[in-house]
């Protein structure tokens, strides 16, 4: 199997641009609350979801915007939803962590790990009502420590469900390096739950595509669940405005005000032995260092990587990219118009 790399690139670029647009709106204050984006994960999202068709289902986590785009949901409806518009995908009731499209059998959840059980339920319905269809769960490596997700893998084995469990492994769960709180090895853990699988570099979209294709195909043919672990890099940290990223990027404005209290705390008369305090400061420093270092270099950016490998003419590429920009601009324009039309000025946070 070989992907249509141009089409794949187009999808990935669409995700990237939609999410960048959402980021812009968020920074402008037109979107309230948290904002978790999948920038840096396009290779995984597109490489997997390219294999789905009608009747297939997807369970997404808090980072589900790209998944919805890739399943074919109108980007304008997604952007509007993020802005809380009544004509958004969920009438503005859900927001970016709670995107739902019944038509696409695509659901999300802000509860870490919930995608596992949800995918099992979708797969059960697939097995009974739509043989040959599958369900895919997306979640992070941090979610692998959530009981319900482990239970779900085991349930999928027990019921022989057509599920692909996709773990987007960026190594971090908010500020926690997942390796520091995760025992064993994720592949072994999955196998200990009866689910075997593969690990891939998620920045290599074509590779993800090939491996996911095999695993999904297997599930479609009734050969049970599979596990795909794909690594990735997320330049914006956990969410937009991630405090570690802010401190790392604007040490003067963001870090300095915290240093005083931090040093004072570390120096207090009472507390742990000094060696431990020093160790804590060391860990905090390395947390910040990691945030500084995490950037989407050419090797880690799935979009740039795939672009380089395309074999179309540069005219065709420019045209494609232009089209994508157009689609995204259009979606944002629609969202902004609808914001005004609905007199939703007041929907900006706190007004």
């Amino acid at each position, binding site marked *: 199997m070989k992907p249509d790399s141009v089409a794949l690139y187009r999808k990935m670029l669409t995700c990237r641009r939609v999410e960048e647009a959402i980021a812009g709106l968020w920074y402008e204050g037109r979107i309230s609350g948290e904002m978790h984006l999948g920038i840096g994960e396009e290779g995984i999202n597109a490489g997997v979801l390219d294999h789905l068709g009608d009747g297939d*289902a997807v369970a997404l986590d808090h980072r589900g915007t790209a998944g919805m785009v890739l399943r074919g949901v109108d980007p304008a409806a997604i952007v509007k939803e993020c802005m809380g518009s009544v004509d958004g995908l969920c009438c503005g009731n*859900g927001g970016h962590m709670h995107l739902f499209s019944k038509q696409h059998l695509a*659901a999300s959840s802000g509860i870490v790990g919930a995608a596992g059980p949800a995918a*099992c339920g979708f797969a059960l319905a697939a097995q009974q009502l739509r043989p040959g269809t599958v369900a895919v769960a997306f979640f992070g490596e941090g979610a692998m420590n959530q009981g319900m997700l482990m239970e779900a893998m085991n349930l999928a084995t027990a019921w022989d469900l057509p599920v692909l469990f996709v773990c987007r492994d960026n190594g971090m769960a908010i500020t926690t390096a997942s390796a520091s709180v995760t025992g064993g090895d994720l592949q072994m853990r999955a196998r200990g739950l009866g689910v075997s699988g593969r690990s891939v570099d998620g920045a290599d979209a074509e590779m993800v595509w090939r491996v996911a294709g095999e695993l999904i195909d297997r599930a479609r043919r009734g050969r049970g669940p599979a596990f795909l672990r794909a690594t990735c890099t997320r330049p914006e940290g956990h969410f937009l405005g991630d405090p570690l990223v802010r401190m790392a990027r604007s040490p003067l404005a963001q870090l300095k005000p915290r240093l005083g209290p931090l040093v004072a705390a570390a120096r207090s008369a009472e507390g742990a032995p000094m060696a431990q305090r020093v160790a804590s400061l060391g860990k905090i420093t390395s947390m910040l260092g990691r945030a500084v270092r995490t950037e989407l270099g050419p090797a880690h950016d799935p979009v740039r990587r795939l672009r380089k490998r395309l074999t179309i003419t540069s005219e065709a590429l420019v045209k494609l990219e232009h089209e994508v920009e157009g689609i995204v601009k259009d979606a944002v324009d629609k969202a902004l118009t609808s914001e005004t039309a609905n007199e939703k000025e007041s929907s900006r946070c706190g007004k």
Partner: protein
Amino acid sequence: MREMTYAQAIEDALAQAMTSDERVVIFGEDVQALRMNLFARFGKHRVRQTPISESAFLGAAVAAAMAGLRPVAELIMIDFVAVAADALINHAAKIEAFSGGRWQVPMVVRAGCGGGYGDGGQHEQALWGWLAHIPGIKVVAPSTPADAGGLLTAAIADDGPVVFLEHQLLSEDWLDYLGSGGRSTVSYDIPVGGRQGEVPDRWVPIKFGEAAVRRRGSDLTMAGVGVGIHRAAEAAEVLSREGISASVLDLRSVAPLDCNTVAGDVARTGRLLVVDEDYRDFGLSGELAATLLEAGLTARYARVAVEGTIPFDPVRERAALPNIERITAAARNLMK
């Protein structure tokens, strides 16, 4: 009309639903043994055994319902919902709202509840008021075979999530399983009309939110669900001999709650006594007080409910649950 036990009525209604709707599937721990007859009839795809993984299979029920099935997921006891509450309160209850009303979750969670057979405080909770606190979940708690079958039929037909609580003291299956274990050396204080009774030839759904008036009196109104309402009815008998005439309202569903019938009756009697096997505070009894006050009624009010963790010792267990002595005492007090 047929005569059935509470447990038979539930099984019969389930069988009827499974026959008339292919999308109905049941799953849970041990269901192939506990629901042996359904397993023998509908096979392993529609009667599915689960691992002891309540979070996974309740969560799966939510999505299965969203994707077109009508799952009836069994938690052995409602106490165990605590390990899987997320599926119910953060998902089943909220997805219709989150999706802007575009996606519904037609699932039933079936679970034993209630005490009186001596299993202790982690296995005898009622929790109906607790579950009803969360908007988006319906909670029913039938007290007779006819209601059990009719409400289960309605629950399966409902387009939203419904928690169906079957009382462990009314269900001969649960009682044999958890209580007597085949012993003839133990006996329980089982309300007769709850355990066995007439049921329709074909199940028709019973609308939620409609209380059944079990008895109409003039001095005070007693309201509740489950075994408590049978205790209230017994108490009403005793009270009537003392010249106190009590209404007994079986609410049948806790959410939705039939505020109108309660308010209407209390408007006549001027007194409300809530009989509740769930915990007293922040639950059904409080909600009924609020609906009275919201209706602008001034009434005398009392509640007989569970005030702490249910003790194991059967003597103190009985004292902790609403029993006829506590109910009559509270009623007499209200008449003072």
